[in-house]
């Protein structure tokens, strides 16, 4: 039997190149050519009075200096609205270069094409832009005030949306107890260590525009570029070879710089590269997470939730290229693993003069879980019931799947949980952290310290459609080439897709080579986001491998004069079941799959026309057949799969410095069947680290004029190894019934419940309510003072 690789902690095939310094990131692409430098707005809200670029043209090495008025054709239009929605009443997207008005600090105003970035920045210093600043709208309070971000969007409201299940008003009136909570979260951002980047080359001989782009969705970048430049799709090739982290930011496209590099490459007939620097990543990519929630919950004496009413405001920044997906995810993921017979959620998505807000790993689920889990903890405190017990009482039970939430999910389809076992997740994590032994441990807390414990559960919609595809081709040399259209940015796709194909086809893992995110290899795809790649492309390449296997068996059956039903593929050989001596190597089947006139090798002679094979009354390729041992497979699910998990944390807070120290962090995670535990655990480690970052260290510090005051790694406190603890992980494997591999996504999970669980533990340590994240020592200190005053 071929050694099974699905489920094994196989070391990654990606690594060899990367650890030798032979990766191929976008900025590594050819340096001969032009570099694009952008001049960005220093004002959050201003009218552009004049732009004088004349002196910049004189700098040696400058090819061109462009403002909005210089843009040709469709480049004058606003960038596309990627995801429209009926409730998004006032969508606005930015122009490639600002037209008359700038709406956030960092908005692109002038583009300079020069021989290198040094020259571009010299030229930038010579451009004079005159602005007429206006009052900036910064923060949710200001958004709800009189000043406007877009003159034609009253109240700054981009979207106003309500979803409901049951009858909340009635449930709240009838509930024995009602509590209200005000919860809010600050902004953070993806901060991939590689910024945005695009490198475009125009080959005027073959008339091809080749774009290497640091993107999560190359196929869509291709369609967008072709559309805006008004050239046929066929002339545009987009590929993302290595991408240095994406985290959601790089799913947004096309960026102004993507279009300008592509257009410039054709216009100037020279390669053009844009590489974002760190400041630009802070002020001109995307942020996420600022939301304010008002919650009303009704429950009975046992703590069972009878009705939940949530009203929240989402700060979407200056533009809405990704529609209202983020707040919609909060709305639909808020119920988590709990039964909410009566639930209403309303949100308003509002404009502010800040960087646009689009999904960042976790994609508005951290807020959803923070809201729900804080609510559960508050009920437990009110009734004086153990927090774990209160969760048990409200869980959806394992025999209640599929469980219909009664809402429409972010894929436009009903939110129906496919499978899960929430009570077991909780019990496992409680055992792991020794929940029951905590009082004992607390009694031993050293002086000057306060100890607390928390637990939080979540459900994450993953693996959503519309579809992905995969292609598998057996080469006559024996290698199996696999491609899928979505891109990779560290998830180990090359390894896990190879594992899947190796098992489905019956070949050694080492023989399989995978390419992702290259439109030259695979033209149709959606992209890498929403923990969907393994589920979508994984099942697609599995289907392609099954088709190839079927075909191989058909061809081999003829050659071996055997019944196809009696054949199997083992270790890359098609053979009569259990009789390895009667077999034919897959590589040879690949030769036979392609009837030849010209032989290219000894083995290939068997497929040539005088080799004597085949029925002379039939054509060499029969109707309905294709040459080559290859196939494309597709996977398009009726709806998303729902992964889940429970986190528990024990913390100690310093009574003098208010610093929070994590003593133990435990995760139990259920993403269905595990393809590669090593990679899944790596994803969880990274997710939890980003969660801790957002809970304790990171925020976007805007001043009232809309300047981002911490736009550097000196001031934005992205954690080093000194801040991140070891994470203990256990798995539960509840297969998804929705796909043949039984898998669910795992990429974003780690980050989702972290703010909720840390808030719970700190609240437990301090004895006062935690309603706001992140929690910096200075804020915790203030809270202590306030709470001391209140209790005096």
């Amino acid at each position, binding site marked *: 039997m071929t050694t099974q690789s699905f489920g094994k902690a196989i070391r*990654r095939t990606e690594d060899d190149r990367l650890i030798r310094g032979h*990766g191929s990131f976008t900025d590594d692409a050819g340096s001969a050519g032009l570099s694009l430098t952008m001049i960005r707005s220093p004002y959050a809200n201003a009218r552009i009075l004049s732009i004088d670029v004349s002196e910049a043209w004189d*700098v040696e*090495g400058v090819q061109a200096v462009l403002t909005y008025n210089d843009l040709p054709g469709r480049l004058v239009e606003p960038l596309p609205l990627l995801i429209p929605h009926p409730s998004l009443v006032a969508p606005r997207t930015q122009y490639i270069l600002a037209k008359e008005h700038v709406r956030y600090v960092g908005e692109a105003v002038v583009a300079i094409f020069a021989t290198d970035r040094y020259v571009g920045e010299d030229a930038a210093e010579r451009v004079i832009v005159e602005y007429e600043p206006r009052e900036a709208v910064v923060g949710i309070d200001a958004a709800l005030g009189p000043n406007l971000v877009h003159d034609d969007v009253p109240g700054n409201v981009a979207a106003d949306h309500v979803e409901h299940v049951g009858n909340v008003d009635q449930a709240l009136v009838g509930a024995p107890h009602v509590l209200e909570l005000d919860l809010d979260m600050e902004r953070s951002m993806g901060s991939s260590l590689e910024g945005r980047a695009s490198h475009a080359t125009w080959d005027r001989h073959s008339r091809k525009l080749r774009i290497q782009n640091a993107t999560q969705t190359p196929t869509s970048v291709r369609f967008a570029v072709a559309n805006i430049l008004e050239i046929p799709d066929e002339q545009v090739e987009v590929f993302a070879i290595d*991408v240095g*982290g994406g985290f959601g930011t790089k799913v947004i496209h096309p960026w102004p710089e993507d279009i300008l590099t592509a257009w410039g490459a054709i216009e100037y007939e020279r390669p053009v590269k844009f590489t974002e620097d*760190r400041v630009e990543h802070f002020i001109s990519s995307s942020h996420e997470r600022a939301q304010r929630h008002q919650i009303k919950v009704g429950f009975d004496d046992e703590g069972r939730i009878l009705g939940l009413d949530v009203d929240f405001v989402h700060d979407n920044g200056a533009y809405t290229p990704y529609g209202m997906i983020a707040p919609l995810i909060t709305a639909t993921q808020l119920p988590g693993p709990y039964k909410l017979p009566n639930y209403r959620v309303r949100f308003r998505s509002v404009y502010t003069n800040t960087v646009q807000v689009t999904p960042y790993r976790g994609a508005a689920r951290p807020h959803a879980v923070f809201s729900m889990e804080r609510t559960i903890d508050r009920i437990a405190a009110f009734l004086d019931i153990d927090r774990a017990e209160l969760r048990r009482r409200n869980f959806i039970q394992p025999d209640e799947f599929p469980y219909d939430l009664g809402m429409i999910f972010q894929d436009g389809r009903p939110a129906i949980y496919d499978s899960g076992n929430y009570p077991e997740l909780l019990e496992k994590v409680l055992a792991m952290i020794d929940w029951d032994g905590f009082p004992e441990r607390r009694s031993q807390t050293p002086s000057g310290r306060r100890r607390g414990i928390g637990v939080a559960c979540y459900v994450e919609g993953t693996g959503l459609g519309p579809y992905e595809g995969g292609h598998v081709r057996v080469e006559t040399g024996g290698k199996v080439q696999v491609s899928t259209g979505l891109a990779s940015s560290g998830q180990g796709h090359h390894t896990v897709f190879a594992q899947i194909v190796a098992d489905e086809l019956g070949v050694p893992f080492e023989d399989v080579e995978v390419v992702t995110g290259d439109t030259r290899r695979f033209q149709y795809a959606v992209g890498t986001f929403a923990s969907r790649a393994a589920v979508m492309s994984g099942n697609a390449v599995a289907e392609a491998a099954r088709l190839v296997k079927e075909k191989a068996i058909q061809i081999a059956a003829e050659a071996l004069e055997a019944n196809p039903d009696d054949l199997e593929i083992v270790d890359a050989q098609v053979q009569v079941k259990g009789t390895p001596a009667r077999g034919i190597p897959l590589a040879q089947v690949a030769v036979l799959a392609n009837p030849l006139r010209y032989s290219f090798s000894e083995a290939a002679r068997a497929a040539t026309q005088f080799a004597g094979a085949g029925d002379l009354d039939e054509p060499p390729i029969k109707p309905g057949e294709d040459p080559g041992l290859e196939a494309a497979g597709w996977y398009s699910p009726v709806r998303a799969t729902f992964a889940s998990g429970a986190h528990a944390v024990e913390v100690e807070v310093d009574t003098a410095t208010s610093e929070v120290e994590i003593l133990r962090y435990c995760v139990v995670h259920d993403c269905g069947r595990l393809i590669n535990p090593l990679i899944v*655990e790596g994803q969880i480690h990274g997710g939890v680290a980003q969660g801790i970052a957002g809970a304790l260290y990171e925020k976007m510090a805007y001043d009232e004029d809309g300047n981002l005051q911490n736009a*550097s790694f000196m001031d934005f406190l992205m954690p080093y190894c*000194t801040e991140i603890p070891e994470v203990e992980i256990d798995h539960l494997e509840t297969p998804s019934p929705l796909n043949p591999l039984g898998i669910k996504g795992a990429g974003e999970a780690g980050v989702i419940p972290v703010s909720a669980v840390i808030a719970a533990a700190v609240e437990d340590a301090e004895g006062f309510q935690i309603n706001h994240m992140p929690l910096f020592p200075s804020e915790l200190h203030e809270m202590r003072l306030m709470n001391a005053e209140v209790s005096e």
Partner: protein
Amino acid sequence: MNTEESYEIRLKVNGKTQQITAPARRLLSDALRGELGLTGTHVGCEHGVCGCCTVLVDGAPVRSCLTFAVAVQDREIRTVEGLAADGGELHPVQEAFKECHGLQCGFCTPGFLMTACALIEQNDDPTEEEITEAIAGNLCRCTGYQNIRAAVRYAAEIVRSDKT
């Protein structure tokens, strides 16, 4: 308008001396990546905080984004490409990062590898504190550091077992 003077700069990288022509303000990171085509050294912040651009100069980790190429003329520079011969056997730190899944996107990795290399070549039995201290100036957004620590630990172990 061109007032900038260029210099002939001799750079000794991975044991090989090459001459480049560049202005005084040319950063070592840009010279390595641009003029010498050694794109394994990455630039994550350009302000000396992330550590992606770390190379070894005379054996000590240095941020190449804060170093002018002209300032390290004739010094011994080592980059990630110099850790192993092309297609040849991996350096213990490379081996360990692969074995321990110490990288995801791989963008921060060259900086961590060079930092870890400097550590274990001086001290093949570092304590947990010494490991933390060595890598505490490098950012990684993907891994949560757990496997990076494990990799550094394991790299030291490989070096020790190679010696016995």
